[in-house]
């Protein structure tokens, strides 16, 4: 098992009547790229700022490299500068009155490195970030993507142990965002630095992370690999949040047939293991659009709209009260009013308790 890099113990952060972080416990291993994912106001940025030392939590403890850097009980607060971490702000926080070179050289100069070394390091990181030739320009003269890279360059030139990134891509346009995603991923793979990444964008989280931590109201809902989080959302909130394309939910009855129990989700029969469901007479069933199939043994639905997008086609269909979205191959054709027979890939569904919202299967 890899070494533990960051450990958060019983961390809380409250402002008068707002709880931003509610008793959080989290362990992050060396080399992880962990994403804190959640809607705005869920406490993910506060968590990041607490790790950085820019925010003082109300209670709890924080260890970096197995060293205690924050403890409310002990009143220990190690200043941000001594935590050996770097942060890329959402606003980039590039100093507008300094050139690109001066921005990147700032921390090195604070450390009183010799001039020649500063220059060498800055030029080398500029080269890595494909910013050669821009050193004498001012940040506001450059494009959003370039500014983003300066912010990253400013962080990595100091060789921090831990990279913290606060929604770094949210100010970029869609295309640039896709490019930067792969660049950030490469950067992480190259440097191996433990990275904590904050975003509300599910796709960003899925594509870059080794682990995702989904938060709501200051509480971690689920921690897992992107695959786990996508395939096995721990509760209804996660299932709804990791829902691109849109997750289908059914209020499903639990039925018995010849001693076997099964679930009726919008007419589709879902087989379950014996003994899985004891008392509930109905559950919430969640099925991803791509897990439906068109099959002769399926249940009849009526197409309400057909949205092709090249590689895939999205079909909306209904059956009485039940409305579903189905993701099919791009070659599939349909028209509103068509009757289709819908089935499900074996076992690719999740069941949730209606009352607690927790996963049953």
């Amino acid at each position, binding site marked *: 098992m890899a070494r533990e890099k960051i450990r958060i113990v019983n961390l809380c952060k409250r402002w008068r009547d707002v709880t931003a972080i509610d008793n959080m416990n989290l362990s992050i291993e060396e080399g992880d790229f962990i994403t804190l994912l959640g809607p705005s106001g869920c406490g993910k940025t506060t968590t990041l700022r607490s790790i*950085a030392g*820019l925010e003082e939590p109300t209670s709890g403890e924080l*260890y*970096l490299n*197995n*060293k*205690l*850097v924050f403890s409310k*009980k*002990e*009143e*220990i*607060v*190690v*200043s*941000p*500068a*001594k935590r050996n*971490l*770097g*942060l890329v*702000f*959402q*606003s980039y*926080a590039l*100093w*507008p*009155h300094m050139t690109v070179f001066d921005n990147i050289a*700032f*921390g090195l100069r*604070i*450390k009183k490195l010799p001039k020649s070394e500063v220059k060498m390091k800055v030029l080398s990181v500029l080269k890595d970030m494909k910013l050669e030739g821009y050193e004498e320009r001012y940040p506001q003269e450059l494009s959003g993507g370039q500014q983003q890279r300066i912010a990253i360059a*400013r962080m990595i030139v*100091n060789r921090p142990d831990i990279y913290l990134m606060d929604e770094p891509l949210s100010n970029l346009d869609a295309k640039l965002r896709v490019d930067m995603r792969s660049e950030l991923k490469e950067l992480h793979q190259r440097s191996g630095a433990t990275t904590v990444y904050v975003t509300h964008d599910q796709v960003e989280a899925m594509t870059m992370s080794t682990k995702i931590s989904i938060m709501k109201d200051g509480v971690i809902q689920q921690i897992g690999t992107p695959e786990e989080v996508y395939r096995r959302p721990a509760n209804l909130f996660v299932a709804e949040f990791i829902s691109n394309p849109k997750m289908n939910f059914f209020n499903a009855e639990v039925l018995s047939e010849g001693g076997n129990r099964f679930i009726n989700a919008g007419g589709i029969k879902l087989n379950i293991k014996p003994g899985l469901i004891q008392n509930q007479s109905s559950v919430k069933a969640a099925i991803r659009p791509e897990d439906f199939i068109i099959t002769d043994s399926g249940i009849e639905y009526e197409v309400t709209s057909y949205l092709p997008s090249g590689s895939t086609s999205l079909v909306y269909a209904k059956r009485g009260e039940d409305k579903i979205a189905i993701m099919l191959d791009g070659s599939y054709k349909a028209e509103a009013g068509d009757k289709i027979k819908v089935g499900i890939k074996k076992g690719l569904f999740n069941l949730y308790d209606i009352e607690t919202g927790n996963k049953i299967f």
Partner: protein
Amino acid sequence: MSEIMGSETKGSPFLRRFIRVMSTPQKIMGSILFILLVLFVFFPAVNLLYTAFTFSFSDKVLPQVVDRGIKAVPGKFTLVHFERVFDSGLTKNMFLIPLLHTIIITIGLTFTALTIGTILAWIVVRSDIPAKKLIANLATIPYIIPAWPTALAWLTVFKNNRVGGAPGWFQYIFHVAPPNWLSYGPVPIIICLSLHYYAYAFIIGSGALATIDSRLEETGELLGASKWQVMRKITFPLVLPSIFSAFILTFSRGIGVFGTPAFLGIPVRYFTLSTQLYSNIRNNLSGDAYVIAIVMILITGITIYMNIKVIGARKSFVTISGKGFRAKTVSLGSMKYIILILIIIFLIIAVFMPLYVLTWQSLMDVDGNYSFSNITFHFWIGKAGSLDSRGILLAEGQAGILRNKMILSGAWNSIKLALFSAFFASVLGILIGYSIVRDRGKILSKMNDALSFAPYIFPGIAFGAIYLSMFAKAHGPIPALYGTFAILVLVSVAKHVPYSSRTGTAAMMQVNRELEEAAELQGAGFLTRFSKIIFPLTKSGLVAGFMLSFITVMRELSLVVLLVTPKTKVLTTMIYNYVQLGFHQFGDAITMLVVAITLTGTVIIRRFQKTDLSKGIGG
């Protein structure tokens, strides 16, 4: 289990916490500022109350004391000053009439200045009038120069022979003495003040109008509202907070204004609260004066309070922001040129005539003779003891202002005072801004915010009176400062704290907290962050604030008139004395000197720094 990092582990947890919290830069700064504000804002205000409620040495001779055989022990509690002001034979003349006059002038001024200012602002910002930039630049000039030169110019033109001295242009040309109501009293006072204070409403109003996104109005039009409905239902409510701000600004200035009513009111015994306060102090009735000061502060305070109630935001008096949209303009059609001509005439009367008249009068040998043969440059550059063409000693033997040691030392005092005060006020402003913005929501921050706002409600003359009462004697470590240059700097800085702290706060707001945090993460200490990040980014705001303080202190009369001594005379108080003594040419020449210095200061700083005057005015 785990080792602890760094050296933050010495001492008990409680002590560590205390040291950590108190050693954050905003707390250290906030605490120092709090002490300063208590010393120079809060204590003086308390002292004012104390003085009003106690006997002083000069009270022994008051009839109310003598008749009743009371022993007026200095420092002993008494209500005699309140009795004298509110309930005695003096009440009518000492309080009720000045109060009435103050109210008449303030209401007249506020109404006129707001009307002119907002209409002008609307025309410049929202209509298709030609030469907008020129009009806007000229219209803001009164904001840079003092208010009372207009009053002096008025006297030069409309003075009649009722109070002695040479009559004005009007009488010289028409051979008829202008009626009293035109020469002195409320009508000229209101007109002269309005010709100055309209500029405040103009700056605030055009700032507000310029920030209204015209899409808001267009949406209204698309929904079928008429132009008038849009104006009434959308535009007006949007600028209403600014209009209220301008109202409060003008109103509070009106309550405290001193120079103009002194020049145009005192000669005919038309007293306002401010001139009454001044004359009480001069007549050794400081107890009574302080009661009047309390009344003035209450009136201003209550007005601001009502404004807060109506608008619902404490800071609504600063709604000036630099950002503007290209607003859609309304076509004035063929009226365009008529309105343009009217505006030009107005600006000539408001801005150029007073300066022209004063310049001319400063060149006259014999006061009241407006022929060209009467022109002399003596009052500017004459040697002491020069004779004129008729062999008469010029200016009673005094040298012209540019050769006159006394006046030059006054000019030096003025410039020194303005520079020092502006420097300290801006530094204080940025520090207050930093501690308020970075410590937002904390008690210390709130108290500093409130304290730094307090001098705003003290009219200049009352604030001067407070300092007079406070620093006439030593208080603990603070020596008796009366008669020193330091007290002038202190009072000017303290009076400007509301403005400079607002400028500082606004400047600090523009520095995204993350810019500082990024430096903190890289190991920059507070001083490095301040000098490398915060200062460079707030420089232009600081310079604007400095410029503003410089020109306001330079032209300040009411604040310092009670505090200067012959040794610490400044130009404005010299003007006041010369005019009181009937030396109009000197007064006018020095006035022009003050105007020249403030204008030059503005131009120089504008050259070096592309700052907008309207930035940071905030009242």
